């Protein structure tokens, strides 16, 4: 029964199940007893508008939180209530899709039909991956016939009906009878094709309205969305020519195993995989173990990862096979059920022959070293005392490929994630009737023989496009633990077997394959070969083979004694240098090694330090003085108590609500609460010196907005609309940074922000009503802040303590960069009125104060951000010298001198 109201409040819902779409329920006001449901203009179409409301009676209506209430009028877009993880998301399907991004993998795994429902109406061009998920889910749980019936009757037929109804609605064709819609059929015309059969009555109606072409276009759009093909079929029935549309989908049966493998392929024990984790590094890496979004062509489905210790699934949207991860071997019962067992362990965790613990295993046993951050794995480069620990394993996985500049995976993947990828990739590629496993099994070594090494690479389409070397694919297998150039005679001698294979990406068409290569190698590093390839990759002209052919000068033995892996080195000479040379190594060099080498005229650089190597290879760049490398193994420096709280990071975007100027101004006019208005700040996302124009945005903390809604209806509306788009966090993610950003500097201090990871330091002053994004750090104080942070001493410290990432820009951190820096005595940390600490010039050093005044007059007050701080000479150079003098260093101290002194000062200050 339709009712007269044309505007109601979406204020409740009835859940069908505890997940997915619920029935939205409407009321005239939040406290109304009468409930209604909305009627969609088009049956089942979440993109349609609301046609009307009807009364609804149910004891099961649940109220939405008031901030989620939305006013809906007839003619407005349909709004959904979507349940997941105990939360109710309100909005259009597109808004909900954005709001649930973080849980999509989980929904895909547990409720793929529901996710597909949402995806179909979320303004997406392609949902073929979700169709694939849902079909696989049904087939795995209920069999092929049910999956096929669902796809025909539930998915495709309903989508065809919605599109036909849209055409009818938009063409103003008179209402079509319900039985006509029921008579629309999709009929299997072969194993992989469906014919759309329209009842004559509907066909004629569409013809008369001139809409057949439109229908065809709509169905073509649907075919693209679902990743199915479309064709026209012509037939003749009782003398009448008929034309119908045929939708086809690829056969989704697994490809048969390769013929070449079928004769002697190892028996697949359901291709189950276990990963046993041992040690701190191994645990850190295992956290990132994810099911791959591909499957080898010899397996008929993907994997999901299960943590047996946490009793939960960790993800894997495509699979039904399992990768079980545990720290406890006894969880794997029976261990003989696993096709592949990987032992992921720290170097120091192995004391006895660990393979003995796996003596009941019947599948392949793989050892995966949890690669240390600062040096190679001893097991990979044969540096263990007796090499006994890993005997008994079938193979050792070269996890150090994750550190290689020739890494063939996503370049934006973080280091530990890369290692986890390597481990899981190797395990999956060894499961089932695998050619890789076949090769390993063929070469099963005797117990007293060294365990060989397995290196694998997936050659994704964009890999190697930028490469200058035709041997790039082979380079994808290169690492610090093996070698680089497959063409060399030596490497061929160390290669025990090569294998080519294909994988199929699960998120694309079923026949979209990617090639992969693998090699079983002797465990014998040829670091010179690898390091030379790295140099050639950085600068092919300057690092030509002739460089290698010139014998590098003999490295002094006392320098080698300071290295942990002295055999893994490659020395070459630099022409402008009178003596010594550059020693490329596999480890992060210690300060002691650097100092020893410097005395002998040598510079030690880790091969991962591409920035330093690139500069070294530029002609004449370091004619006078060798640089300080970036990748250094520092002694364990401590956080200094006096620096605590001096620096805060910019705000976490999840803790605030952002508004553009237009929305903010519109709201401000109706806002009644001055208190809330005072909480709004301008949002700084860039420095003026970046030269980028920034559109004006305002932010307000979620907690303040939520608190204000009780007294201010305008705030409630603002929050309600926002809550429809994104879910408000239960508690701020970083409350202390939020507080720091919203606080006002006390005692006449000024506020400065420092850009993360940029050297020379980029620093600027901000206004009191501004709060910075999280790519900045906040410090309060006087002109001492830019003076000290812009100094050479701080630059050296910041560069050496930078947290380096394979995936993203290097970063400073509050605890690692700022709280460890020993602030010299000429500055002081003040806490006006017991508030947060600030950096000020000390009273005693009159010269410093004088220079700061000069500095301020010349730069700070005159748009100094328009100048390049790094190039400032006077008075910056003078300030620099005062700061160095405070550390008992002269103005001509080297960067290594500075770093050593700062480390000493840190250790002294931390007691």
């Amino acid at each position: 029964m339709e009712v007269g109201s044309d505007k109601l409040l979406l204020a409740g819902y009835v859940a069908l199940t505890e997940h997915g779409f619920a029935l939205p329920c409407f009321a005239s006001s939040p406290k109304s007893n009468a409930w209604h449901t909305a009627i969609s203009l088009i049956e089942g179409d979440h993109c349609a508008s609301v046609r009307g409301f009807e009364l609804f009676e149910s004891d099961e209506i649940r109220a939405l939180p008031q901030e989620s209430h939305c006013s809906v009028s007839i003619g407005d877009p349909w709004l959904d209530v979507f349940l997941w993880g105990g939360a109710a998301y309100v909005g259009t399907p597109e808004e909900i899709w954005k709001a649930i991004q973080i849980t999509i993998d989980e929904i895909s795994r547990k409720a793929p039909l529901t996710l597909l429902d949402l995806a179909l109406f979320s303004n997406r061009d392609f949902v073929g991956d979700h169709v694939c998920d849902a079909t696989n889910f049904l087939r795995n749980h209920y069999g092929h016939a049910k999956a096929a019936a669902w796809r025909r009757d539930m998915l495709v037929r309903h989508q065809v009906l919605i599109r036909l109804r849209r055409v009818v609605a938009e063409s103003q064709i008179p209402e079509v009878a319900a039985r006509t819609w029921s008579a629309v059929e999709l009929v299997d015309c072969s194993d992989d094709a469906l014919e759309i059969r329209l009842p004559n009555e509907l066909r004629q109606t569409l013809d008369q309205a001139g809409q057949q072409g439109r229908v065809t276009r709509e169905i073509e759009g649907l075919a693209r969305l679902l990743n199915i093909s479309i064709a026209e079929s012509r037939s003749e029935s009782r003398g009448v020519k008929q034309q119908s549309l045929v939708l086809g989908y690829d056969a989704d049966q697994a490809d048969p195993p390769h013929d070449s493998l079928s004769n002697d392929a190892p028996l697949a024990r359901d291709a189950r995989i276990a990963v046993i984790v041992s040690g701190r590094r191994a645990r850190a890496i295992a956290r990132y173990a994810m099911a791959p979004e591909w499957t080898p062509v010899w397996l008929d489905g993907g994997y999901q990862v299960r943590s047996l210790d946490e009793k939960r699934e960790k993800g894997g949207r495509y699979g039904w096979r399992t990768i079980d991860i545990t720290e406890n071997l006894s969880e794997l019962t029976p261990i003989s059920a696993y096709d592949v067992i990987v032992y992921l362990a720290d170097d120091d965790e192995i004391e006895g022959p660990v393979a003995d613990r796996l003596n009941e295993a019947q599948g392949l046993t793989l050892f995966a070293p949890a690669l240390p951050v600062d040096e190679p794995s001893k097991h990979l480069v044969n540096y263990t005392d007796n090499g006994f620990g890993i005997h008994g394993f079938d193979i050792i996985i070269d996890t150090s490929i994750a550190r290689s500049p020739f890494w063939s995976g996503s370049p934006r993947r973080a280091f530990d994630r890369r290692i986890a990828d390597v481990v899981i990739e190797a395990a999956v590629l060894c499961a089932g009737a695998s050619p890789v496993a076949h090769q390993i099994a063929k070469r099963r070594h005797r117990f007293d023989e060294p365990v060989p090494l397995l290196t694998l690479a997936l050659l994704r389409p964009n890999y190697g496009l930028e490469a200058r070397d035709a041997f790039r694919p082979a380079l994808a297998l290169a690492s610090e633990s093996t070698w680089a150039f497959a063409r060399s005679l030596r490497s061929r001698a160390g290669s025990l077997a090569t294998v080519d294979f294909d994988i199929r990406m699960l998120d694309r068409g079923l026949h979209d394959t990617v090639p992969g290569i693998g090699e079983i190698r002797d465990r014998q590093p040829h670091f010179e070969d690898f390091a030379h390839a790295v140099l050639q990759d950085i600068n092919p002209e300057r690092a030509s083979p002739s460089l290698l052919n010139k014998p590098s000068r003999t490295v002094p033995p006392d320098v080698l004694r300071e290295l942990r892996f002295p055999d893994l080195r490659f020395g070459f000479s630099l022409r402008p240098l009178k003596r010594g040379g550059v020693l490329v190594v596999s480890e992060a060099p210690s300060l002691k090694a650097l100092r020893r080498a410097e005395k002998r005229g040598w510079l030690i650089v880790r091969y991962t330090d591409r920035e330093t190597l690139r500069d070294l290879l530029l002609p004449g760049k370091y004619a006078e003085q060798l640089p300080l490398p970036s990748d250094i193994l520092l002694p364990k420096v401590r956080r200094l108590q006096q620096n605590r709280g001096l620096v805060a990071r910019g705000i976490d975007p999840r803790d605030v609500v952002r508004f553009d100027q237009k929305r903010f101004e519109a709201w401000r006019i109706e806002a009644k609460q001055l208190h809330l208005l005072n909480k709004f700040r301008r949002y700084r996302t860039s420095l003026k010196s970046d030269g980028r124009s920034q559109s004006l945005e305002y932010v307000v903390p979620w907690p303040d907005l939520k608190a204000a809604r009780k007294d201010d209806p305008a705030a409630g509306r603002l929050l309600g609309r926002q809550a429809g788009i994104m879910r408000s966090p239960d508690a701020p993610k970083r409350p202390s940074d939020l507080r720091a950003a919203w606080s006002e500097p006390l005692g006449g201090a000024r506020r400065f922000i420092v850009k993360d990871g940029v050297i020379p330091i980029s620093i600027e002053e901000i206004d009191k009503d501004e709060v910075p994004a999280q790519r900045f750090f906040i410090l309060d104080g006087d002109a001492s802040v830019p003076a000290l942070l812009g100094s050479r001493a701080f630059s050296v410290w910041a560069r050496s303590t930078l947290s380096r990432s394979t995936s993203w820009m290097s970063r400073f951190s509050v605890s690692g960069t700022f709280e460890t820096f020993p602030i010299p005595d000429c500055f002081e940390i003040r806490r006006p009125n017991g508030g947060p600490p600030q950096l000020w010039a000390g009273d005693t050093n009159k010269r410093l104060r004088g220079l700061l005044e000069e500095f301020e007059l010349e730069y700070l007050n005159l748009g100094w951000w328009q100048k390049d701080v790094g190039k400032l000479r006077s008075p910056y150079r003078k300030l620099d010298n005062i700061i160095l003098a405070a550390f008992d260093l002269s103005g001509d101290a080297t960067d290594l001198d500075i770093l050593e002194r700062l480390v000493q000062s840190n250790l002294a200050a931390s007691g």
Partner: protein
Amino acid sequence: MKRREGTVADKQLQLRARPDGIPSKLPLVHVTAVGIAKEIVKSRKLETRKCPVFERKLLYFFAMRPAYRLKEGDAKSHQVNRFPFVFIVAPNAVDELYHVYPFDTGGAFRGVFSEQADPYVFLEDYELAPDHSAIAGQIGWAFGNLRAYLDGNIRSDVLDGVPRHETVTRGFVDITRLARSGSNQPDQRASAIEVAVNRDVELKDNVKLVILPKQYLEDASVSNSNFMDQLRAEGIAWEVYDWQPNTTPNEFQNEITRIAQAWFETNKYL
């Protein structure tokens, strides 16, 4: 529709019964809301409940028709309209019938058919004989064949030879026109043959098919696998329909009817 109070009913429709080749026993359909259905599956039986019309514990079915829609006259849309769950029961699951009516007595009692119903004919007058053959006889006479019955299309010549004074028969035909498939808002209950029994029906071996929302196939926050396992344990086949919040009760009914008819065809009832 009024009830008789102590007077003898004039059961004219019983005399019109004409099976005309309709199978003597037909599958029965019970529709309820999904929340209740879960309890039914848990208890492993369809249970009788107190009927406010006949004031005794009864269990209701419709012969072959998943009819449940409540519309004008009911004033409001209810849970079952929005979240239907269908049980299809084998013909021989119930031998002794309490009563058989040619339409939904609950709707009739609440006045859903008032506009069409003859105000001078009482509810009890429409009662058919309380056995399976009466179902076949009513379908044969009123609809001619099963497919027409399922579509709600009464024979066009059904009133030929029916005298003016046979008001019960004519009253029934007037009501039944509400359910014709040509109508844009057909009320399937107006011609769905209602069967009531006064005993519980075990699910095992009796319920042959359930039709449920597709969301029950997924294991999300609440595990549905136990529920699906229970169905499997009772030997019950299932089909799903596409539950969407913006699908109207009419549309659900059309969809469920389509699925049920496909099952009847597969199992040679049609």
